[in-house]
């Protein structure tokens, strides 16, 4: 008898807790005095580090807008949801954000798979979604309400290929990429573009995100005739690859990468080993743009570390939504139309305009790591 009661007790107790939690956790719908921006980003799981940077970027943009008096006297709030970098969580989070009427637009998601899973829901609900980190080509066709502040892989891949083959004269290319939507998409573009310029991809090897042992892939690169290594992945793995090259007979080989490796974490983690890495990027602390410099200063004051690429993209994404709200109010459809027509938005990642797919068109910078700092270079 006692057992039965305790079981009943636990079940009913849990039910009660859940009912209360669900109702209070996400109750607020109906218009109020605050303007809310949704943020869907991975705060746990393998991409949590980038997700955190994105959150910092958005929070900073909103804080600055609030300090300047808000929009029409209203304060702005960020509703942060964790999508864990998982497509099905992303759908849950998207559903949660769209049913909140105060939300005027969403910054998110980071992983392309999450952006695509969420896009259906945002587009059905008619709410603007700006991704700060999904560069996969498929996102172009995701819908009218889907935008991004990062360029597609194709833009950067083409630029990097020209730099690598035409200007630097490398013809035997090794491509190392992370085995997910991002890395594979980038690897395909790089292979296509470098081969179009007459170079040969002599090694094309995948690694897993969060892998620590690169000896196998590096040994394979060493056995090929590669004279340059292009990485389709992020800063953590790039730093480890740079550090493990010496142990695997690749001392001194040139590494090249894209904006995904632009992060102080690359230098912190890689130390001396990452000196000499060449990369393309849109955001850089070496930029002479006034907007960029004041962003870097504000970010460093706020969080005690320099911003990386994704913090910058997220900052721009949030500011574009804020700019739209300031100009056309909180009507979701009007915001979408405003953003679709947006021309020459002066952001920290360069001058932003969207094309008919909601993709951004910008010119990348050439950078190199020299003595532990990112510098813009000509070659």
């Amino acid at each position, binding site marked *: 008898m006692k057992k039965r009661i305790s079981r009943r007790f636990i079940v009913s107790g849990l039910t009660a807790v859940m009912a209360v939690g669900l109702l209070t956790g996400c109750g607020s719908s109906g218009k109020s005095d605050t303007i809310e921006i949704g943020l869907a980003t991975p705060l746990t799981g393998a991409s949590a*580090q980038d997700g955190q940077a994105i959150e910092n970027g958005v929070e900073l943009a909103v804080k600055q807008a609030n300090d300047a008096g808000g929009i029409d006297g209203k304060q702005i709030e960020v509703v942060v949801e964790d999508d864990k970098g998982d497509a099905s969580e992303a759908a849950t989070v998207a559903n949660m954000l769209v049913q909140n009427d105060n939300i005027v637009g969403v910054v998110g998601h980071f992983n392309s798979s999450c952006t695509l899973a969420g896009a259906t829901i945002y587009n059905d609900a008619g709410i603007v979604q700006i991704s700060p980190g999904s560069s996969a080509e498929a996102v172009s066709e995701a819908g009218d309400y889907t935008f991004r502040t990062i360029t597609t892989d194709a833009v950067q891949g083409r630029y990097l290929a020209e730099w690598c083959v035409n200007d630097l004269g490398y013809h035997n290319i090794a491509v190392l990429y992370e085995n997910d939507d991002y890395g594979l998409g980038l690897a395909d573009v790089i292979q296509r573009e470098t081969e179009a310029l007459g170079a040969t991809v002599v090694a094309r090897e*995948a690694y897993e995100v*969060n892998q*620590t042992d690169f*000896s196998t892939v590096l040994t394979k690169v060493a056995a090929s005739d590669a004279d340059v290594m292009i990485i389709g992945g992020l800063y953590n793995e790039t730093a480890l690859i740079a550090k493990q090259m*010496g*142990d695997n*007979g690749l001392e001194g080989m040139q590494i090249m990468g894209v904006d995904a490796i632009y992060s102080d974490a690359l230098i912190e983690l890689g130390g001396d080993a990452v000196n000499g890495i060449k990369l393309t990027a849109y955001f850089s602390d070496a930029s002479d743009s006034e907007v960029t410099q004041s962003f870097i200063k504000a970010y460093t004051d706020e969080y005690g570390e320099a911003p990386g690429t994704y913090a910058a993209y997220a900052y721009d994404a949030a500011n574009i939504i804020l700019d739209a709200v300031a100009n056309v109010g909180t009507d979701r459809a009007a915001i979408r139309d405003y953003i679709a027509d947006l021309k020459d938005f002066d952001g920290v990642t360069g001058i932003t305009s969207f094309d008919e797919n909601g993709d951004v068109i910008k010119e990348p910078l050439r950078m190199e790591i020299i003595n532990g700092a990112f510098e813009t270079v000509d070659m």
Partner: protein
Amino acid sequence: MFVQQLINGITVGGIYALIALGYTMVYGILKIVNFAHGDVFMIGGFMGLILAQTTNLPIWIAYPLAMLITALIGVLIERICYRPIRLHGADALAILISALGVSIFLENFAQLVWGTETHAYVQKIQRTAYNIAGITLSNIQIGVIVLCIILMIVLYLVVNKTKMGMAMRATSQSITSAQLMGINTEKVIALTFGVGSALACVAGILVGTYYDAVYPLIGYSYGLKAFAAAILGGIGSVPGAMLGGFLLGIVETLGAGYISTGYRDAFAFGILILVLLFRPSGLLGKKHVDKV
């Protein structure tokens, strides 16, 4: 390239073997799979990093201290999260779920405390790479392999030649009979968790030193592979865990090296399934006999 890949495989295999020992010892005694062991390995790596970095202790004090702390954490996990369920006489699956809970807890605790980023490890040993007949080998790589083998031999001797080891073996055969023989089985179980966790800590420090990285989710893939290695060798058998670890490391490296890097993990699990289909109790495992 073949010899080079073989050496790469042995290095990573040695680390799998060290972690696999923790799985296999706990299983041998309690017949449960301690799914939190991969995360204990991660905690061990962080302990080594923190003690060596913040306290500025020399590594020959800092690292043994990290082992001790990790061992204590392992014992505490058993004490708080497994023992009450065990004494309750519940299904082994209940302990498994508790272990999953511990694993989720530790991973997220680590993310909260140390952040989600990858940390560079303290490098107190100067890294030198030697090139012998086209094969590159670093002093740290040699150190990893040698240390793994020494530790495994020591553990083998402890289990088979000492009184404590005898108590362990007795407990693994039957907890009740061991108690009747006057063995303090709870102490033996605590010791098993302690030793397993300390070895996982060594593995964490070795991964940190060799690959120069540690992060909160590092325990996932190493833990999974080490678990596979323990089963491959025959779970419950100490030499089996060593064999399984090295074999798994070599197979996945050669598979990735000669066939496809994308399918790297598939080779490890493929060979595992094949071995189990032909030798259902692993390479060195005892034949399971059904008793009526």
